[in-house]
């Protein structure tokens, strides 16, 4: 499976890049959150690949940590988004400019 490493890494980068692009470009708040998850998963994939490459378990352990933290983070983020949406009544991120100036 060693020869698959470059492919896997490229895939990881691709997923990360797509997620990053999505965060920067997309206006829908929920979609942005999903893209952030994509980024996280891209990183996860690369971690697993490296873990396999070096033969240590460090990467895999880290992946589990990231799962948990990501889950917690989403658990907080979605309600915050919900509250924000409730006041502004739109999912368009560009409407949230209260921190201007």
């Amino acid at each position, binding site marked *: 499976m060693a020869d698959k490493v470059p492919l896997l890494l490229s895939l990881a980068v691709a997923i990360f890049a797509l997620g990053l692009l999505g965060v920067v470009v997309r206006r829908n708040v929920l979609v942005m959150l999903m893209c952030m998850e994509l980024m996280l998963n891209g990183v996860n994939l690369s971690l697993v690949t490296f873990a396999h490459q070096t033969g240590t378990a460090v990467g895999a352990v880290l992946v589990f940590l990231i799962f948990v933290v990501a889950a917690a983070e989403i658990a907080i983020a979605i309600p915050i988004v919900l509250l924000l949406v409730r006041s502004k009544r739109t999912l368009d991120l*560009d409407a949230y*400019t209260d921190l201007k100036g």
Partner: protein
Amino acid sequence: MNHLLTLIVLLPLAGFLLNGLAGPRLGKRFVTAVGCGLPILAFLATVQCVLTLNAAGDPLVERVYTWARIGESTFDVAFYFDRLTAVMTLIVTGVGSLIHVYSVGYMKEDKGYARYFAYLNLFLFFMLLLVLGRSLLVLFVGWEGVGLASYLLIGFWFEDAEKARAGKKAFIVNRIGDAGFLVGMFVLYSTLGTLDMDRINAAFMASPMPAVSASLVGILLFIGATGKSAQIPLYVWLPDAMAGPTPVSALIHAATMVTAGVYMIARLSGIYVHAPEASQVIAVVGVLTAFFAATIAIAQTDIKRVLAYSTISQLGFMFVALGVGAYGVAIFHLYTHAFFKACLFLGSGSVIHALSGEQDIRKMGGLARKIPVTFVTFAVATAAIAGLPPLAGYFSKDEILWFAFASERGGSPLLWGLAAGTALLTAFYMFRLLWLTFFGRSRMTPEVEHHIHESPFSMTSVLVVLAVFSAIGGFFSIPHFLEPLLPMPEAKHELHHLETPLVVVSVVLALLGLAAAAFFFGRDAERANRLRPRFAGLQKLLYDKYYIDELYDRLITRPLYWISDRVFLRIGDRALLDGTLNGLAGLAQRTAGALGRVQTGNLHLYALFVLLGSLACLLLVWRHV
């Protein structure tokens, strides 16, 4: 005996404090007793000191206390009493006491009675500090102090803005002179390390002489004298000073304060003997002032103004004497002038008092019979100032004229000529004053005429005393008395024979002046009135004092205000300095505003920045890896 000099100085100070703090509450009698009594006591103490001096031979010195010790320098407050001081102190306390007594009657109705006597005593205190001080520092304290007293007394009726302004003018013009005086003092101290006048004189008389130009010091000190003694160019305060009560004019602006400059130069004769250039300047300024003021006096119509310009003119005479090295003679004239000028001023005060406040001589006339004592004393004093023998003024003026002509130290025919011309004018305008005030038909308003009354005894007695001294005072030869201290200059050998002829000329001039005045102003100024239209222009020029005050205003006062306001305040402070500051602050605010526009509140933009930033960091790290 040890502290008598200090006592002389402190007595009037006590008077000031008592009358100033408690006077209004303790009533007129108390104020009078303290206000007049203490100066009289001071006079008696002075007499005692003179006797002691006579017996001792050496000058009396009293050290009171040390004002400051800094490093090697010590500044003591000490008093010094020699023959010159004796003459001055006797005049100050003697004439001073007389004028205090006169004031009792003159200021009786004034509600500021206590304040008046407090200020007058304060003046006396400072004047005594001035003449008794051993060092220039103590003299300067007195010098400034009399300026203060003068300011307070000229502006005594301060509710009148004009009068208050006159006081301010006096103080400030004096200060200009004082600036020169200070620099002169500084030069002396920097080179000699002392301000004690006896030591300064000794240093200049010793050989080798100090390494400083005596003339430089002489001129600087003289600048101070021009301020205090009203010479060109700083005389402009004196005529305005007539706004104060008349006894003040008599005391301060005739007999004592204005003579301070003369005293100072005589005291420091050690310097001036070695300063021919400075002495020349003094003589020239003196004679020009004398002549100039005399010309103005002939056209004045306020009785006190005539006397004011006359004072300036007579002071000029004193400076002429100083300038040609005849220091003792200058003091002699100071002494005689104190008597007749005080008599004249107090006499004019008596006239004003009699006429319920009228000061314009065009509205007087025919007073000779109505106020005889005032008239006689005034006439005697007038004759004295004109230089008619054997009155006091004749002796002193004559000596001045002689030395102006013949002194080895700067006497010249030109100097004499101008001085003699001034003497002629003096006689002329003084007798004009006498005629217009006391002779002819009355030109007074009926109201005023109705209330004419001779002044009370407190005033007339003083007039009589002063008139007597104006008459016989000349017989005591001050120059001779001061000879050991202030030697007379040598007269040019080839001119000795002209001494007597010159005396005759002086007398003739005086008589000429008298005659001319009688001619033009007798019979109700008939001839003068006829000639007036022809000389209207000249008369206006003289009456308006050659527009010197206006000139000073244009050249100095207004530009000063203009520069201070337009240049310094508006351009300098507001536009430049504050503008820069506010501009910097504004710049900071605008920059902050501009930079703040990055904070759009748009999360996408922030995310983009984060991305770009991290890319940049990565690149940076990449290059160095």
